[in-house]
């Protein structure tokens, strides 16, 4: 091993293993591990790979549901979408790499998630990117932000997968630790579904794609499992060599080659190489398939000389896949790889299961018949990381924070300036993303949810549509991680309804601070409970997830930031939904409760108005009533669904009420329409900015019919305004020109980035 581990610290600790974990390794092997073996355990038992802190809690999530073909634990969740088509979806974080090198961090995040999707046999069809940064007043944030967006653009566009949406959140808590989450969905003919498992003694493991270098060595343990300080330049520099560089052209050829291999039925199992590289791919495929594997470490194509076996096994060089094939299929496999100029090498052989054991041994050898360098039970690496029951601690300031409620704060006389400051048009971001490739994007970035045709090369014909949204709200989750997470799920449902879709599955990316802090573990537990409760209430399965811990800097944890991805389906997609806007002469109808069920009627705790405008982070969240929420969401999905099916619908505009409350929702609709709106009857700033859940604004020429439909569905509905003219007038609170609002929204990001002209 390298000289760095020769200090006073024992090797296992330098690699990130605790003394207990090292003892466990000795117990498993019945002897002391050698250096290579220790390195394998260190990467595979890291937080990033083993979820050792979160697994105890993740078990509480509901994962079963109709249509679930593959649940959590595989590379991606898969849902049966009908018409012989399955949809694969996954979300991941690439937070720490992006904090160090924003372009490559974000780029390789996109590359990694794509591989998770085509590993399942699905062609990646869409990417979404929820991003979180500190304030753009700080030049470092601008560098991070522009770099991350450029990285997603540079990789995603080139690899040929459209980026159809995302989210943008700015909060000081991300200043040292930006969050870069990536969601990808793909589709496949149901019968092409493959799993990442090896089987058949004598079958071959073929490594496809890039050569293996030292990039990303230790990335798993160093980058993802240890906190770091963005303020310590020296520490950053030391970790920089661990950053991987993405090659979208290699990935593009890898996608085409792998899908061709699967189409030809040449592959028994396939697995991407992500965190922990070959160590992970070989041990996981063997463990899942209940077999063993011999790996010839000398057969791995390398891009650097003098690499040690542990470096080859743990390298996180990008754009690599491991395919399990029969010896008979090998020539055909090599031919397809040759056509796509994809490098391929036989690096492993499937071996027998242990007698009586669940899986076989993972043996690392120098030549298939050569000396054995490491010999461990495959399952012990993949599945048997000691769980870590970390202490939970409810934050001590909870009661005080709850009492510090901004709801009673005096409001401004004129709410216009507050409203304007909360509007931002993210087109500066999404204009850098190809969001149209594959001719599927019916609603792209900027809508409530992305809505896509369910179509792609090689798929059976279908009239169906798929909708996807990612949502988060660190302000809510910071006040109450449990209720806040449930409200985020609820918001996702409303977003899907606004494009006419009903939700079928959930994926989640839980971004939290340092799990060694008991409050963070409490937050994690609460977030998982909130997610479980919401999913149970709405009848949704969780089909995949990712936990990103150690998001902190200088000892300060980020606000709990669960990002919830929701997948929805539309049975027949023949027309675009009405969208965020309206026509002139329409009535604006508020569906859902006008006031909270209990006092205060218009709570402001956790609202954007309180948090962003006034730095008030206390108070209590409004209450979510899942049953009432369901009624509103179903009604909206039905009303919008009529339009989407190609029939004459009642609506000419639709938008859910979320961050920024009625005020922001109304203003966004006005900006979308480019037409004025007059709203009356709102009492005060609290009613304007309160973020009471379960509310959707719909614009219609036939308000009577909409209200009748609402009454029949048991949903409160009230006309609050009429469209026309050129100004947004909210009686007594706001009077602004729509053109000015539109300009302000469009200029917000370019101005914050100090762009010229």
């Amino acid at each position, binding site marked *: 091993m390298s000289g760095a581990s020769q200090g006073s610290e024992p090797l296992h600790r330098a690699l990130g293993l605790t003394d207990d974990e090292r003892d466990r390794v000795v117990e498993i092997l019945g002897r002391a591990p050698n250096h290579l073996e220790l390195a394998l355990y260190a990467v595979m038992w890291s937080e990033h790979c083993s979820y050792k802190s979160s697994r105890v809690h993740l078990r509480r999530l509901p994962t079963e549901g109709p249509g679930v073909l593959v649940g959590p634990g595989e590379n991606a969740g898969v849902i049966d979408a009908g018409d012989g088509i399955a949809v694969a979806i996954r979300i991941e974080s690439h937070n720490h790499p992006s904090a160090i090198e924003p372009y490559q961090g974000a780029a390789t995040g996109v590359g990694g998630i794509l591989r998770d999707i085509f590993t399942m046999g699905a062609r990646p069809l869409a990417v979404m990117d929820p991003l979180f940064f500190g304030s753009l007043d700080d030049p470092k944030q601008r560098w991070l932000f522009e770099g991350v967006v*450029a990285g997603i*653009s*540079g990789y995603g*566009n*080139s690899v*040929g997968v459209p980026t159809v949406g995302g989210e943008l959140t700015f909060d000081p808590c991300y200043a040292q630790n930006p969050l870069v989450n990536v969601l990808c969905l793909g589709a496949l003919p149901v019968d092409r579904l493959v799993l990442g498992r090896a089987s058949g003694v004598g079958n071959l493991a073929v490594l496809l794609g890039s050569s293996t270098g030292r990039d990303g060595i230790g990335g798993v343990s160093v980058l993802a499992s240890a906190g770091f300080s963005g303020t310590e330049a020296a520490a950053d520099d030391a970790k920089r060599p661990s950053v991987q560089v993405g*090659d*979208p*052209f*290699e990935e*593009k*050829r890898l996608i*085409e080659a792998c899908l061709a291999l699967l189409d030809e039925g040449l592959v028994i199992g396939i697995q991407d190489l992500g965190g922990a590289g070959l160590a992970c791919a070989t041990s996981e495929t063997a463990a899942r398939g209940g077999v063993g594997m011999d790996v010839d470490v000398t057969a791995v194509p390398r891009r650097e000389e003098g690499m040690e076996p542990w470096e080859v096994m743990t390298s996180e060089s990008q754009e690599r896949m491991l395919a399990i094939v029969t010896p008979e299929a090998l020539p055909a496999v090599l031919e397809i790889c040759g056509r*796509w*100029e994809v490098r391929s090498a036989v690096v492993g052989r499937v071996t027998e299961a242990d007698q009586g054991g669940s899986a076989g041994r993972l043996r690392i050898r120098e030549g298939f018949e050569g000396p054995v360098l490491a010999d461990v039970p495959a399952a012990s690496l993949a599945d048997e990381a000691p769980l870590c029951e970390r202490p939970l601690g409810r934050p001590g300031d909870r009661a005080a924070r709850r009492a510090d409620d901004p709801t009673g704060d005096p409001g401004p006389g004129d709410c216009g300036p507050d409203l304007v400051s909360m509007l931002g048009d993210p*087109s500066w971001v*999404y*204009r*850098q*993303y*190809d*969001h*149209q*490739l*594959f*001719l599927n*994007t*019916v609603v792209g970035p900027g809508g409530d949810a992305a809505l896509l*045709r369910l179509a*792609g*090369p090689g798929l059976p014909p279908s009239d169906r549509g798929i909708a996807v949204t990612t949502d988060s709200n660190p302000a809510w989750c910071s006040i109450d991680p449990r209720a806040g997470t449930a409200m985020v799920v609820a918001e996702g449902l409303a977003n899907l309804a606004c494009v006419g879709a009903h939700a079928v599955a959930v994926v989640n990316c839980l971004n939290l601070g340092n799990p060694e802090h008991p409050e963070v573990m409490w937050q994690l537990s609460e977030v998982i409970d909130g997610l479980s409760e919401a999913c149970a209430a709405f009848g949704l399965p969780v089909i995949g997830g990712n936990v990103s811990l150690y998001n902190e800097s200088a000892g300060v944890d980020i606000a709990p930031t669960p990002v919830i991805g929701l997948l929805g389906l539309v049975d027949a*997609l*023949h*027309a*675009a939904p009405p969208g965020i806007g309206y026509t002139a002469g329409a009535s604006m109808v508020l569906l859902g409760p006008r006031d909270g069920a209990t006092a205060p009627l218009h709570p402001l705790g956790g609202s954007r108005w309180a948090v962003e405008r006034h730095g008030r982070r206390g108070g209590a969240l409004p209450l979510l009533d899942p049953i009432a929420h369901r009624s509103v969401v179903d009604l909206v999905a039905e009303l919008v669904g009529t339009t989407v099916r190609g029939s004459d619908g009642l609506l000419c505009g639709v938008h859910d009420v979320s961050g920024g409350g009625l005020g922001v929702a109304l203003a966004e609709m006005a900006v979308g329409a480019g037409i004025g709106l007059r709203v009356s009857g709102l009492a005060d700033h609290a009613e304007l900015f309160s973020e009471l859940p379960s509310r959707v604004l719909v614009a219609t020429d036939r308000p009577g019919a909409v209200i009748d439909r609402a009454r029949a569905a048991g949903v409160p509905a009230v006309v609050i305004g009429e469209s026309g003219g050129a100004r947004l007038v909210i009686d007594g609170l706001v009077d602004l020109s729509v053109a000015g609002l539109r300009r302000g929204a469009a200029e917000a990001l370019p101005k914050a980035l100090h762009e010229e002209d």
Partner: protein
Amino acid sequence: MAARVGVVVFPGTNCEHDVAGALGRLGGRAELVWHADSSIDGLDAVVIPGGFAHGDYLRPGALARFSPVMEAVALFAAAGGPVVGICNGFQVLTEAGLLPGALQKNRRLRFLCTTVPLRVTSSRSVLTGLVPVGTELSMPINHFLGSYVCDDVTLAELRDEDRIVLRYEENLNGSVDDIAGISNRAGNVVGLMPHPERASSELLGSTDGVVLLQSLLAAAAAPRAA
């Protein structure tokens, strides 16, 4: 009989299915042509679609122009066959010398995916044969290197010979003379940065690209001398 249109696929091309699908819906018979093929016999037209041929490494189109298929495309073009390069395809055609000038980084040095207003400025090409001069079209662009540049002599030639096929009404990428698309002298080779196939469906928001694709299919179906 439906016109047979070859859609060239280099490693890294990504709009081939979109173009083939859009042409197919308009009655064309689109087939994918692999870049390593050296024959394109029997085709009535060739489209080089968008994407990132060879990853756009070195320069967009710089490596693609050496693929075997490009020799066949050059012969086909010389014989008067309709050849259209869309986006990356335009870049390939300029690198291959089938069209003059070059495509440079956008003025703002950022990728641009958005819908822009365009005006048809010549009907004398295989892509605009059915479209009256002055027609306004709204179509998506999707590129990082879409800023058309050429020297003054070339620009004067393009103007004098009525070879500027499409101009931006809103020039976001900084192209010389607002050029969005040009043709060769004979009008049978056309390159353009906007994507007509992305404007070929009501469901996706625009059908303005349809007349261009129809013009191409009409040109492909027309009998050719040679």
